[in-house]
Structures are given as structure tokens and as C-alpha cells.
């Protein structure tokens, strides 16, 4: 079984990946834009925040800058697609590999340790709660604020225009919606959220590393799909809650898998487990439906 610390640790990273899942919901679901930029914008957020914190910036200002950097990365992907007509998936891969070099440039080396630096978490440790609960509390507040803001945005005139762009671009244009601008805005916001997640991840783990983005897209997708399997995303707010729940469930499942000694799994098996979990999350709802259909089929 999980120790208390491992449990809180899983919830903590789950909350951070909830932000990634928000971003992926925005690109994959709302805009129907398969965006792999996140593998680059996650470490970009971490790198920007880490460098600025080392420079002595206020950690919240550093985190805000990470959000802006993520948004810029997303905007580049979307502009490659909208203005230069490059296939969306390819555009995002181009930005993603370009970011690998950029992240090395930003940091000046492959990784930066933040041990002993003041982070967004530092003031919260003086609260009268257990050490390992502090990040969970702070990140829970962050994700609730992000959820409410995103939900309000989706309900706004611009947000509705963005949803129409992804659902039916031809109709959206006929209603006077600049679909290209909506895609650029949406993918930018999506990667801004991922940049935020990267910045928080670096601060909670105490380091930024150029390779920390590998597989973030898959983890985010796993969270999104898993959450949708648990909570039917019939409304925007349910879809957003599903992202957070899915991310936490995913991290807990990983923690259980790695802690269950009888399975003999070790940390290096993480990506394999992720791939298996994503496959199950995609396949299982279909299996369930077809089983239900078989069992309830009426006699002709």
C-alpha cells in the first residue's frame, strides 16, 4: 500500500498534471487541434521559472513569466498552422523540437537545481500543516482558480466562439468568427497552462531539467481520457473537473503500480505503465458499451 507521503506526493503531481490536462482539453477537445507542443512548453515553463528565480525574481512573477513563455510557444505552433498552412500535428512537432534547443539556451545548461531558493511554496511552509501537505494545498488552490477562470471563459462570447471554431469551423466563419485568431488564442492559452504546470512542477521538485517534458502529452491525454471515463463530460464544468480527477487518478494508479511489490515494477517502467494505462482508458469504455449491447440485445 501507499505510504501517506507517497499518497500526498501523487495527489500533488496529479494537481499539476491537472493543469496540463486543462491545456490538452482546450487543444484536443475544444479546438480539435492535436497539439504536441506541450512536450516542449512544459520544460519551457520550468526553465523560465527556474532561471528567473535564480536571478532573484519574485517566484510568482517568475511563474507568470513561465505562463507567458508557454503562451508564446503555443502561438508559434498555431501560427505555423493557420498562417503557413502546415498540418497542425506537424506544426506542433516542429515547435516541440525547436523548444528543446530553446530550453537549453534559456537555462544555459541541461538542468538547474532550485534547492534552498525561495519558491511559490516557501511562505506556505510556515503554515501549521504537515510538510508534505503544503504543495497539495497550494496547488489545489491554483487549480480551482484556473478551473473557475477557464469555465467562465468558455461561457463568454469569445469562449463560445472558440468552441464553435473547433466544433464547426464553416459555421463559425459564417457567424463572423475569425477562426484563425481563435485557434491562435486557444492554443496559446492551452500552452500557457502547460507552462504554468511546468513552472510549478520545477518548484515543487526543486529542479528544472531539459528532459522533463518527455511524455507530458501522453500523461495529459491519459488524464483527460481517464477523467472522461469517470465523469461524463456533458458540460464544460464537468469536462474540466474530469481533467483534474483524471490526473489525480492517473498519478495514484502509477504510484500504486510502482508500490505494489508483487508486480515487480520499478521507476524505469513508468512510461510503459503510462502507455498501457492510456490504451486501457481508450479501449475500456468501448468494451463496456459493446458488452452492455450484447447483454441487453433484445430478441428479434
Amino acid at each position: 500500500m501507499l505510504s501517506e507521503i507517497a499518497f500526498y506526493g501523487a495527489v500533488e503531481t496529479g494537481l499539476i498534471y491537472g493543469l496540463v490536462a486543462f491545456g490538452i482539453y482546450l487543444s484536443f477537445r475544444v479546438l480539435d487541434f492535436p497539439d504536441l507542443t506541450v512536450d516542449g512548453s512544459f520544460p519551457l515553463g520550468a526553465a523560465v521559472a527556474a532561471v528567473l528565480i535564480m536571478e532573484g525574481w519574485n517566484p510568482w512573477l517568475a511563474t507568470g513569466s513561465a505562463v507567458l513563455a508557454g503562451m508564446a510557444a503555443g502561438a508559434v505552433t498555431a501560427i505555423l498552422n493557420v498562417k503557413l498552412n502546415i498540418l497542425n500535428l506537424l506544426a506542433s512537432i516542429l515547435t516541440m523540437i525547436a523548444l528543446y534547443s530553446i530550453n537549453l539556451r534559456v537555462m544555459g545548461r541541461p538542468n538547474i537545481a532550485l534547492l534552498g531558493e525561495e519558491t511559490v511554496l516557501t511562505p506556505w511552509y510556515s503554515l501549521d500543516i504537515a510538510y508534505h501537505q503544503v504543495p497539495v494545498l497550494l496547488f489545489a488552490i491554483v487549480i480551482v482558480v484556473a478551473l473557475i477562470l477557464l469555465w467562465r471563459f468558455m461561457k463568454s462570447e469569445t469562449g463560445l466562439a472558440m468552441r464553435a471554431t473547433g466544433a464547426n469551423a464553416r459555421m463559425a466563419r459564417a457567424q463572423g468568427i475569425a477562426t484563425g485568431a481563435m485557434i491562435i488564442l486557444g492554443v496559446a492559452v492551452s500552452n500557457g497552462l502547460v507552462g504554468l504546470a511546468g513552472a510549478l512542477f520545477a518548484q515543487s521538485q526543486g529542479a528544472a531539467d531539459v528532459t522533463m517534458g518527455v511524455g507530458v502529452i501522453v500523461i495529459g491525454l491519459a488524464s483527460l481520457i481517464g477523467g472522461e471515463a469517470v465523469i461524463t463530460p456533458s458540460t464544460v464544468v464537468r469536462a474540466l473537473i474530469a481533467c483534474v480527477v483524471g490526473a489525480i487518478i492517473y498519478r495514484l494508479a502509477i504510484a500504486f503500480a510502482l508500490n505494489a511489490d508483487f508486480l515487480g515494477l520499478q521507476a524505469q517502467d513508468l512510461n510503459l505503465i503510462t502507455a498501457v494505462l492510456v490504451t486501457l482508458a481508450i479501449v475500456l469504455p468501448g468494451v463496456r458499451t459493446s458488452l452492455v449491447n450484447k447483454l441487453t440485445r433484445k430478441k428479434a
Partner: protein
Amino acid sequence: MISATDLRLTFGKGTPLENPALRGMSLTVNQGEFVTVIGSNGAGKSTFLNALAGETLVDSGTIVVDNVNVTKLPTHKRAGRVARVFQDPLAGTCEGLSIEENLSLAIKRGQFRGLGTAVKKQYMDKFRESLSSLNLGLENRLGDKMGLLSGGQRQAVSLLMASLTPSAILLLDEHTAALDPKTAAFVLELTTKIINEQKLTALMVTHSMKQALEVGTRTVMLHQGQVVFDIAGKDREGLEVKDLLELFEKQRGLTVDDDSLLLG
């Protein structure tokens, strides 16, 4: 008023599949006119409508809507002046959004969209009133997803959406063609009702000569990317499908071999 002058457009220029869709098309539709457009397959009806809407930009010629030259403007910048209902009943609405969200999108057609709530309480009376005119009971289903509605219901809502805010012209692209005959008759009746009540200027493409003569105030026939005849007023009264065919043959020395024009 909308005026198209000498529109020319060739698809696949310089390739073996070169296809001149518009060859000097000119048409002026005056305020309050309801023009029906007929023509066989490949006559350029859909291309003409797409050119007016901005979905395809013409090679040459000019399009002026309410004294504004829109020839080079993309669709979304014309949307404030040009309203449209598509042939595909699923194309005019978003199935993942609710009825009230779809209507709220349409009520801001061509206007600035900000960060205020999209579905506003003050819209609701207007939405309920227009939906109840359809007699489909949709006024009590504002929160339902559009995808729950039938094709005919969705086309009726598309029509409402297109007429929710004023436009210089309403483009109807064979909007009853994909519906069953009963539903098609209902949507057509609704179309004439809305156009007459709101005194809209409209351009309706249809595949049926009968339909083209039954509704509207003026009929235009396209052939090979041009207008071959244009009748309105007294000349048009009492005209039947066979008169239309004779007229066409006389004008061009051609026979109509497209059965679908004669049917329906």
C-alpha cells in the same frame, strides 16, 4: 443591395482538371427582392454563392454589398452583411452546443465578441418567441444539445439563426435538398414566411424549377458560369416549368438533359 459584376473564377488553373466555374457572372439583387436561382449541375450555382459569402475568392470581378466592396474580404468579415443557410442541415449549427448557445452565437453574427457571458438572460424572450413560431416545441428545450434535434429541426433553427440579426442578403444554398419531402415543404414555407415578415433580401439556390417559380419574386437561371435568363414581375407570373424550359432552349439553343431539374 448586393451587386456582383463580371465574376470570373477557374478551379485548378493550369492543370488538366482546369474548370472554369464562373465566366463573367453578373447579377444585382435589389433591396427586398427574393431571387431564386436554378441551373443544372456544374452551372456555377454553389460557386456563385460561395463567392458571395467569401468562402471562395474570385479571380476577377467585384462584389459590392450595401455600397461596400467586399471582393477581397474573407467570410468572417462579410458575415455582418451576409447571412447564410447551408445545404447540409448539420452544417449550420454546432451539435455539441445547446440550442441557446447556438442562437447566442448567431445573435452576435458579425459583431465584436468580448468576455461577457455569451448566453444572456435578456436574449431568452427573443429566443423563445422565435422558436415558438416554428411550432416544434423547441422553445421549452433551450438547454438541449443541438445534436438531439432532427435534420429538419436543425435546418429550421439554422434559418432562425440566419434571420436573428439584420443582414444585407440572406443566402440559401439548396437548403431543403437534403430533407424528406414533408420536412422540405415545412422548411420552405418557413423560409417564405420569415423572408416576407422581415422583408429580407434573399437569394435561394434550388434544384427544383417548380420550387424556383413557386416562391420568390424573381428567377435567375445559370448556365456555364453565366446568367442565361432573368425574369421578374409580370413576365414571371403564371410561368410553368415547361415555359421555363422553352425559354432556356430558345435562349441557348440547348436542351436540358438534367432530369433532376425537372423533377420535384
